[in-house]
């Protein structure tokens, strides 16, 4: 018997349909503009597919559902024909982010195996603020923005991931939870930020070790390999200033170096020692001026493949130019590249983006002494 915590953000996606760039804080305006709730329809699609898939499997893993009452979960589950449903939270009307966090707290306390939610980046962010990396989360895509790496590509494909995970076929991996700063976005500024690391079900990375043998490397194993690769570069080049960007893949380098690398910030390493932590623009410029040889290590964030986005605040076009387009090392696990076949640079400076994209392909470190040429959006 597996326990799944299930939650629908009933207002998710409403802002998008009426041209608002998100729904946070503008739900009333969206309704005035005629927006209709659609999240429950997406959730219904996934639940129906899930129900269908489980019916086709002999001895299916029975699911005990924990959810919120009414339109935040229970209604959709009952409509899909699931009966082992326990409502652990009764949301306010209209529901708010507080209802999400309260429900997630109940799910986590009850020891659920997976949190399945229907929403967008904002919902993912609210969930992670409570669940952290304690419970894997998976999103049915229904929001205005879905930059985070925790969403299935479609409502039905999300059901495949749930069955695969329940059957023990999929492992879990760390993924980035990103969101736009909606206030800045509505003012016309595109600003994406990495907010949290989350756990999510992932196809394992297969590597062939012998003709008949295939290893399923865990996400942590692959990150460790990437970290080992970079560690050797750092050790071999004590005079080079390494600037380590945000995200869990780059953070694993810090772990291997036994230094305190921040998850969300940009940290500087010289000769294996941290010489700057969570640097801002000023701090970066200061270090760059003092170190003629430097290298910036970045991993594409979220599911959109942005190696550099406008929200990557301290890494302004000026800073990137000062570091030099040739001095950027991109790292990513093969599992992440599976979901991000195209890398993107969007620094807000078109000429710089073109220089970074080069001839449309970029070598990406995907393992120990393993690099793959990956297409870049030009």
């Amino acid at each position, binding site marked *: 018997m597996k326990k799944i915590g299930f939650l629908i953000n009933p207002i998710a996606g409403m802002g998008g349909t009426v041209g608002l760039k998100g729904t946070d804080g503008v739900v009333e305006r969206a309704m005035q503009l005629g927006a209709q709730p659609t999240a429950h329809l997406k959730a219904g699609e996934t639940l129906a597919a899930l129900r269908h898939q489980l019916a086709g*499997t002999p001895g299916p893993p029975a699911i005990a559902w924990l959810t919120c009452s009414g339109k935040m979960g229970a209604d959709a589950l009952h409509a899909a024909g699931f009966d082992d449903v326990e409502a652990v939270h009764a949301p306010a009307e209209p529901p708010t982010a507080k209802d999400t966090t309260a429900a997630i707290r109940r799910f986590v306390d009850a020891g659920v195996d997976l949190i399945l939610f229907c929403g967008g980046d904002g919902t993912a962010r609210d969930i992670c603020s409570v669940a952290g990396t304690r419970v894997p989360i998976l999103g049915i895509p229904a929001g205005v923005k879905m930059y985070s790496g925790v969403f299935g590509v479609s409502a039905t494909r999300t059901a495949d991931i749930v069955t695969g995970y329940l059957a023990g076929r999929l492992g879990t991996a760390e993924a980035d939870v990103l969101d736009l700063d909606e206030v800045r976005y509505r003012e016309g500024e595109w600003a994406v930020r990495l907010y949290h690391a989350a756990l999510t079900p992932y196809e394992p990375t*297969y*590597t062939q*070790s012998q003709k008949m043998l295939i290893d399923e490397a865990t996400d942590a194993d692959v990150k460790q390999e990437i970290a080992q690769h970079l560690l050797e570069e750092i050790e071999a080049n004590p005079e080079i200033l390494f600037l380590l960007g945000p995200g869990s893949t780059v953070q694993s380098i810090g772990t291997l170096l036994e230094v305190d690398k921040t998850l969300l910030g940009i940290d500087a390493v010289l000769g294996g020692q941290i010489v700057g932590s969570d640097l801002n623009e000023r701090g970066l410029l200061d270090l760059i001026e003092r170190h003629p040889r430097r290298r910036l290590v970045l991993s594409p964030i979220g599911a959109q493949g942005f190696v550099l986005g406008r929200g990557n605040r301290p890494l302004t076009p000026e800073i990137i130019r000062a570091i030099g387009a040739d001095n950027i090392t991109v790292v990513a696990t093969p599992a992440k590249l599976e979901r991000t076949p195209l890398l993107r640079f969007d620094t807000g400076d078109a000429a710089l983006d073109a220089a970074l994209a080069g*001839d*449309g392909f970029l070598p990406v470190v995907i393992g120990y002494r*393993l690099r793959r*040429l*990956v297409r870049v959006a030009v």
Partner: protein
Amino acid sequence: MTEPTVYELSAAGRCGLALPEIAVPKTNLPEALLRRDNGLPELAQRDVVRHFLKLSQHNFGVDSGFYPLGSCTMKYNPKVCEDAARLDGFAASHPLQPPETVQGNLALMFELQESLKEIGGFAGVSLQPAAGAQGELTALLMMRAWHADRGETQRRQVLIPDSAHGTNPASATMAGLDALEIPSDTRGNIDLEALRAACDETVVALMLTNPNTLGLFEEGIEAAIDLVHGCGGLVYGDGANMNALTGIARPGDFGIDLMHYNLHKTFGTPHGGGGPGAGPLGASAALADYLPGPIIARCGEGAADDGTCRPVMPAKSIGRMGTYFGNFGMLVRAYAYIRLHGTEGLRQNAIHAVLNANYLRVQLADRYPVPYDRRNMHEFVCEGRPDGSEVRAIDVSKRLMDYGFHPPTNYFPLIVAEALMIEPTETESRETLDAFADAMRRIADEAIGDPDLLRAAPHTTPVGRLDEVRAAKQLILCDPAAPDTED
């Protein structure tokens, strides 16, 4: 295992053979020299013979059944080649014998070099490498030396398609170079746009398998080779799939600078057990001088050529890749195989290998999706997930064992999800191919109707489903010097 060990079969006092009466007076050994705890099993000769015969029957080989292990070219090994390798003159010679006493052996090696030059379109061949992967390493060391002689020591990158054999990046790393993976395009060819982006003054070589591991002929082979040569790089051919080309096309003719042959694939020498193998290396005129030695040369030229042979080192040789003359027994078998078939026979092998693989693809494609569905060469790759069922390639493979077939290669190449890589080779009859296709179709039915039957397979083998990765990585070893230690 159903077969007990000899220790379990042992019965006190049982004896395997009757010794003749002794002609000298019997003297007991001093008590102090006697061991009571040697723990040797006591069995009748009959028990010993039955025990080892049963164990041998637990093996599966090309001699016991169909073995469509993709990329391995598990063709039948003609027994006459074994006979040749066992001739006293070959089997009982010693590598330190003076050349004049082993002229027959040297002549065989010379002839084999000449045959391989002709088959691949190369100017020189070295028989030194002991296996395909060592052939790769040898080639990379030669290319490194070639670039170094031209003062181009900044060349460090080896370009490798994402469909390549895993040995390619491993060899590049072992040669101290950096591997860069190049993606495939939607038709399963190397992505020429990506290759163009990667070609610059840092490129040592492109390592290319043609046909590639999807069993597909590289449609842009000439453009790919031109791109690499254009930036001053070299092109290495992984000859693992040469069985599709022998007698049809010559890699040297389409611009491959170096290529190894897998004698156990293309030329029918036995596989397995980690050797002994042989991976001779062919080289273009520009690189032949760098080949590892010794290679075998005729003593004189023209009228002065009296047919005698001697080992020589090529002018700029990178040195030896092994002791003495490589795995000579394998060279004898391959030579016998080549002479047995002749030019037309080798060509027919390639044609029939391609025909058999296409026949199977067409038979199976409606049940097992083929992601790059175009005419294949000697092998093809399908998805081991019939008709959208929830079973996996590994389950299909394990179930095939219950039908008496060796599984295909699983999960390789890595660019196809749930890959099954099927290579029937030219040596199988239509009846065998039909029986295999029939089993695969029945398994596809089972995958829908009774998937758990597949998940628990195999059911008829001496042991059930094994954790192969764990078995290979967590070895349980015992120290023979410590007889009481178990596990």
